[in-house]
């Protein structure tokens, strides 16, 4: 064996989440009333473009989730037993080994061939001089960086982008071929349907976004082998690598926290709304109390307590990564415990409305048990709220992690996350000359992730929330056919044509 697989706590939960998502997709495909709103999501251009970007983030996150310990050469003797490294690596680490191992001395700016700080070097003639030394890895292949750097970077970027473009063409061709095969039409007509956005899923938006992303990725991949494209940090680590590693932390916080929060919100919210009476009172007081404690204080207290426990029991963790991982999991749990109140309140309100509906009354008249009413009548009818809330909360949680890590109560300092990156970079903003790239990298990656999550959430909400759908319907009005045709003024839908004596 060349490696030993390691499944950390969060890994297990992420696998569970992936399994749940796959099961849900399977279930949705079979149920028309769930599939219909998802098809509306598919129609939304912004939603699908955002999903394309998200997919890249998710792929990176998943690669970073498969952990293993590589075998090391057993120097202590040929007992035949393989020894494994104490370092736990993920697939992403293995793929990005060059990025991970090419550590410079200290700061260097993006695409630099020289260090950002002067060093005293000994001149061949025995004298000493303060100058910017060449980097050990960044641009090391260049003979004369002053003249060659720009051309080399440009050439490599174009070559990488060209490769990306080629890949994109392959993907589009494959997509068109699949579409053509499904609908039994010629390849070119499928291609032109994609071009005119005449497909059931908005493939044009996907393709456009894919083009942008693949071009960027291709250029970045071609460059990152010989340059530090986003510079290096204080200890000389590649910032691009750190940004990639931060993605998993953000995704884990965003998704696992929801997983932690859902049982609380669903169970308490629905029981409060359904049973009312004292159950409702107790649950209401509970979440009112919880939401009046400042959540940062609560989280800080819990994290610090856990920190002390971990420090006094070092034997529980066989690697540093395991320790950091457990802390991440606890952070998810704590965030989950403190953030269920909003969704719970929403679900309670919706259940209060639903329980008065006549089909619930009819179920009561049939003597259907409470549990069955909740699981068959209420739960399916509040799922759209759960879905909207989950997707909307995701970006908030990614940002919350950054804030908490910045304050120092977030993830373990050894774990790379957007928060720790910002925290490490904040002092350097005051430096002269300024070190801006660490902050820039964290900011732009987080921005892309949160923006695409938000756009996707918007598309999901538009598709699932019946009230939102009313107002966005039929925007493609063919106005002004008649000369002097008046602009019609919108009125609320309540003025519609309905008879209910």
């Amino acid at each position, binding site marked *: 064996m060349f490696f030993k697989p390691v499944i950390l706590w969060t890994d297990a939960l992420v696998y569970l989440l992936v399994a749940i998502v796959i099961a849900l997709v399977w279930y949705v495909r079979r149920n*028309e*009333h769930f599939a219909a709103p998802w098809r509306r999501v598919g129609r939304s251009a912004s939603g699908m473009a955002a999903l394309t970007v998200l997919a890249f983030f998710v792929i990176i996150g998943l690669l970073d989730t498969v952990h293993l310990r590589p075998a090391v050469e057993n120097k202590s003797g040929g007992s035949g037993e393989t020894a494994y490294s104490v370092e736990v690596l993920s697939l992403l680490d293995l793929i990005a080994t060059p990025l991970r191992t090419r550590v410079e001395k200290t700061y260097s700016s993006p695409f630099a061939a020289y260090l950002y700080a002067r060093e005293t070097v000994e001149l061949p003639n025995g004298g000493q001089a303060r100058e910017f030394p060449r980097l050990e890895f960044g641009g090391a292949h260049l003979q004369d960086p002053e003249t060659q750097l720009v051309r080399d970077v440009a050439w490599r970027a174009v070559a990488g982008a060209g490769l990306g473009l080629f890949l994109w063409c392959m993907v589009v061709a494959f997509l068109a071929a699949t579409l053509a095969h499904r609908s039994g039409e010629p390849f070119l007509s499928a291609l032109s349907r994609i071009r005119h956005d005449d497909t059931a899923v908005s493939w044009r938006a996907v393709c456009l976004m894919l083009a942008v992303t693949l071009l960027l990725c291709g250029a970045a991949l071609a460059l990152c082998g010989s340059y530090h494209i986003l510079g290096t940090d204080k200890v000389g680590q590649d910032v691009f690598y750190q940004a990639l590693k931060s993605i998993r932390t953000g995704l884990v916080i965003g998704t696992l926290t929801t997983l932690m929060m859902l049982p609380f919100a669903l169970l308490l919210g629905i029981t409060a709304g359904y049973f009312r009476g004292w159950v409702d009172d107790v649950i209401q007081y509970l979440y009112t109390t919880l939401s009046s404690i400042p959540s940062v204080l609560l989280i800080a207290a819990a994290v610090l307590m856990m920190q002390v426990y971990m420090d006094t029991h070092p034997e529980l963790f066989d690697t540093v990564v395991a320790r950091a991982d457990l802390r991440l999991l606890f952070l998810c749990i704590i965030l989950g415990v403190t953030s269920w109140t909003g969704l719970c309140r929403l679900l309670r309100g919706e259940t209060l409305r639903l329980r008065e*509906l*006549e*089909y619930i*009354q*009819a*179920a*009561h*008249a*049939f*003597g*259907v*048990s409470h549990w*069955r009413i909740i699981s*068959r*009548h209420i739960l*399916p*009818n509040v799922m759209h709220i759960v879905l909207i809330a989950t997707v909307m909360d995701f970006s908030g949680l990614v940002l919350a992690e950054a804030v908490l890590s910045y304050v120092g109560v977030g993830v373990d300092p050894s774990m790379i996350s957007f928060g720790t990156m910002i925290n490490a970079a904040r002092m350097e903003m005051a430096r002269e000359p300024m070190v801006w790239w660490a902050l820039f990298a964290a900011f732009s990656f987080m921005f892309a992730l949160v923006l695409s999550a938000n756009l996707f959430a918007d598309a999901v909400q538009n598709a699932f929330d019946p009230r939102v759908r009313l*107002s966005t*319907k*039929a*925007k*493609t*009005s*063919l*106005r002004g*056919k*008649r000369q*002097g*045709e*008046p*602009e*019609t*003024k*919108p*009125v609320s*839908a*309540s*003025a*519609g*044509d*309905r*008879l*209910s*004596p």
Partner: protein
Amino acid sequence: MSYVLEINDLETILHAEEAPVRAVDGLTLNIMKGETFALLGESGCGKSMAALSVMRLLPEAGEIMAGSVKLGNEDLLLLPEAAMRGIRGKRISMIFQEPMLSLNPVMTVAEQIGEVLQWHFRLHGAAAQERIRAILNQVGIPEAARRMNEYPFQFSGGMKQRMMIAMALAGEPELLIADEPTTALDVTIQAQVLNLMRDLQQRDGMAILLITHDLGVAAQMAHRVGIMYAGEMVETATREAFFRGPAHPYSRKLLASLPGRESRHKGLRLAAISGNVPSLSREFAGCRFADRCDHAFKLCHEAAPGWAVVAGEHHVRCHLFDPDLLRRSGERGSGDEESQQTVRKPGRADESGAGIELKRERRTISSPPLLSVTDLKVYFAIHKGLIKNVVGHVKAVDGVSLEIRQGKTLALVGESGCGKTTVGKGILQLVSPSAGSVRYNGLELVGLERKRLRKMRAEFQLIFQDPYSSLNPRMRIVDIIEEGMNALNVGVGGDTGEYRAEQQPEVSTRRRVDALLESVGLPAETKWRYPHEFSGGQRQRIAIARALAVNPKLIVCDEPTSALDVSVQAQILNLLRELQNSLGLAYLFITHNISVVEYLADEVAVMYLGRIVERGTVDEVLTTPRHPYTQALLSAVPVIEPESTRHIIHLHGDLPSPVNPPSGCHFHPRCPRVMPVCHETYPATSAFSSTHTAHCYLYPQEPDSRRF
């Protein structure tokens, strides 16, 4: 002759996802000064869209494609939006259906009316206040000077509709568009509001475009009537001509589908119009009604009919009246004769049932009642404060006694808010009664433990008012129907538990679902679909099938037809009646619609503010009503007889709050024949026959019982 409003070939479409919906397709109508034009039709016929097109207040997806709307000499469709704002509220005003939704809850009434005055007349300050008071006096708001500074929630539904009328009148409009102005109101309040509109029209001479689905309202209010079907007008006539002899097959069916005593005595099924209003997004080649018409022939499916003159101002869009066609087929007889004949002859839908005399078994009164309710009380406590002290009770049901016999129908009649629905739920133990007893087949249901009650639940079932909220949108029809059977172990046979039945849907269960669906007139393969694929009437059939699935003996029908169109209502009433005859069901029929009561009920109980004020057989109560409330209620129901000489007893005010019912007889504040004794104690029973009783001091009291 000059018209206030002239609409010519108006075409309005709604842009929808698939195909544009032609909501109004070539509408032409004229309204004279001082005239009321009633636009009649079922829901989805484009009536409201026509009104909104006139106001140019269409929803965002709507667009006027062609035609002209002339107000006086101005074509409203050519005006810029800014000029239109000067017309809305000033020259044309509109009243909407829901008074609760059309008033802004955070503005006082005076502010809302003041807005109109300020915009159109530049009236401010004292002058505006004076004018507001005058307008409110006009619409009959008592103590206008004080109440004008109150907020909408402080007014009752009828008062709010008066406010809406006041706002509409503030601009002194030439044309008032009333879109179902009384649909959300009770009959007695409806009579008040209609009366008010008529008075105002006579005084100010404004034109009214009345949009309604209620033939009775149209018969009372309109000078001329237009019938709309599927986006186009199919018949126009004066009121007298229309109600004397409607020409278009659709109009005839519409009139024939009204339930009433006559149809009941003849033992006939109601003339239901089969099918539904067609979707307006499709192309029509021929007559739009052809698919549902009994008289349709080949031409009807091929060519759209033009206007034909029946007599004078009576026009109809039907091939049956086309003079050329009539001439060609002389043996068919004159159009008039044809129409006369078909009015008498029931249509295809009821031909099957026309000959069948509905057997109404005359059971002796002495047979033990299936359900007997004694002195049922349902109070809802009002909690206040931090520790939720009980500060009072809403006496929703305050001592109701009634009996229902096997296979009979008891109708519970009353205005909204009188506690009818709560009686139904109290009987079914869906709300727990505060006092009294409910005996089903001699078994006391009040206080029965949950487990034993569950076993009893198969015996009595419930049908709801709103077919849209009574079916779970996330469940297939088969699951909806099987749910009750599984929960109550009915139909599977033997002791197959709920769990097993769910795991392996037995063939017998499936067969039963098919049979149930067929018995309510739906094909068996519909069971795999979801509720949203059905129309309102079909959903109500599914709801009935669901209730029947557990073989109940008693069904509480809570306004089962009030959310449906007249033609669909007839379908459902026919179905309920057939089921009663074949299965021997007993119904507790909760309704506010007197004509449905006349058609379906054996006995009637009239409720007012939580108590039954009069009960008896349907003939006794409806022909010789004794209680002043029953008399007023019956007189307020709009009737179609053109030369009706009946006197409407106008009740003043609204239903009092059940939190503090008036002392003595609950009805005394509104009673036209109130006496001093009425203020003191609630009257005892007065019996008129063995079945007919009332609670009123006008009649000799029975000394032995003070029961109510």
